[in-house]
């Protein structure tokens, strides 16, 4: 379990645990005889057997050569399983780059047109830092929040001891009774989107609580998209 630093609506803070909610597949894939299979990457088209190489070897009209001799197939290499690899960059001329490349950040508008190029800014994770995640003033009924945001990820908060149980249970109870979700913000002012790792994807996060007797569920629903239509779609 991972940790995050959270304050309640009174501003009291604590470090609590969380787990990601994941879907467990209902099936697994097997061979026709019921045996196990593994999903692997393999060499399908080795270097030197593509269109350009065939043109060099047999000329533009190499169809007959394909029928007669299978020159596009190298049986020594095709099908070879690929294990671990290292990422490399190739220059525009296809040569391996031996020095770190310069990285630029390109901004692309919803119309698909490039708007800007700039130096990338390093954005640090903000869920387990000095400034605790805080409740904002934005509170929405459950019924409203599902109509405004798309939640592609949810994490569930858990306590680590008796004190954090009281802390999280009280938060869940208050939200459940109000039937509300509260927007949680990060950073010094408690307004920033949540970023779980350095340069990670930023999320808007709504905290939802449920209680059943002494048990509770405290869920942080994460969204990167509003439920609305593009401007050119009616």
């Amino acid at each position, binding site marked *: 379990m991972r940790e995050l630093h959270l304050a309640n609506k009174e501003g009291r803070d604590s470090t609590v645990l969380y787990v990601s909610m994941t879907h467990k597949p209902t099936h697994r894939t097997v061979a026709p005889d019921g045996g196990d299979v593994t999903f692997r990457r393999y060499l399908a088209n*080795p270097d030197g057997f593509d269109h350009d190489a065939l043109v060099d070897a047999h000329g533009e009209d190499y169809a007959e050569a394909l029928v007669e001799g299978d020159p596009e197939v190298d049986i020594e290499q095709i099908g070879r399983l690929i294990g671990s690899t290292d990422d490399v960059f190739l220059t525009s001329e296809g040569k391996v780059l031996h020095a770190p490349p310069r990285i630029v950040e390109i901004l692309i508008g919803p119309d698909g047109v490039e708007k800007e190029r700039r130096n990338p800014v390093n954005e640090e994770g903000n869920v387990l830092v000095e400034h605790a995640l805080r409740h904002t003033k934005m509170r929405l009924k459950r019924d409203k929040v599902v109509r405004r945001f798309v939640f592609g990820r949810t994490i569930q908060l858990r306590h680590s001891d008796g004190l954090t149980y009281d802390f999280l249970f009280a938060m869940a109870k208050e939200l459940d009774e109000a039937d509300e979700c509260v927007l949680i913000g990060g950073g010094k002012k408690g307004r920033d989107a949540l970023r779980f790792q350095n340069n990670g994807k930023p999320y808007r996060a709504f905290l939802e609580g449920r209680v059943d007797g002494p048990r509770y569920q405290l869920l942080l629903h994460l969204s*990167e998209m509003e*439920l609305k239509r593009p401007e050119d779609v009616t």
Partner: protein
Amino acid sequence: MAKPIVVQFGGAESSFDFAKLDRKKLYTTRRRQALDAEGKPCRRAALTRDGRYLLQAGMTAQGYFDAAGAWVPNKALKAVDVDGNSVQKHPSTLGVAQEAVLATARDLLDLKVAVTYMLEPLEVDAGLREVLDGGGIVRLPMVYRAGYDPATAYLLGTDNGLFLLTGNPTPPEWVEPAATLAVIDEDDDDDDDDLDFDMF
């Protein structure tokens, strides 16, 4: 053009045309690009650990292999459940009426949304229209392409029109209270105000 999404609710059918919605259609997106010394875009490639192959786009493929290392064509693959029983493939639900039931906002909050669709009504039954206009949500099964793991879909109306959110439910577990220490009984006869300091 894809077949419509057909919903059967209260015994009547409604159908909707649909288009996928993603954040690229709504917002400015960022992409990082590596440049070489001349300022030209670099391409990513993968070098095998033995240094034998420099793998570029289009040179590799992926597939299933059995225990003996033989390739198994996708068409020959089967699916089994956790008990080893054979599982049947679910056909696509597009163009086929799917039974919808009322659901709650809390049900929808338990969905890990994978794909969002904007809906355009083709024919909407008055009963379903009334539910959606009144803030109701309905749930139905959704299989875009035939597969073994059908998605769950929620249909709802917003100020921006009708949407269908599809994904897999991820219902959370209840978190039990922490074990607490027993409270000491104040009426315990053995408990008095005399503290034993002889032990020090």
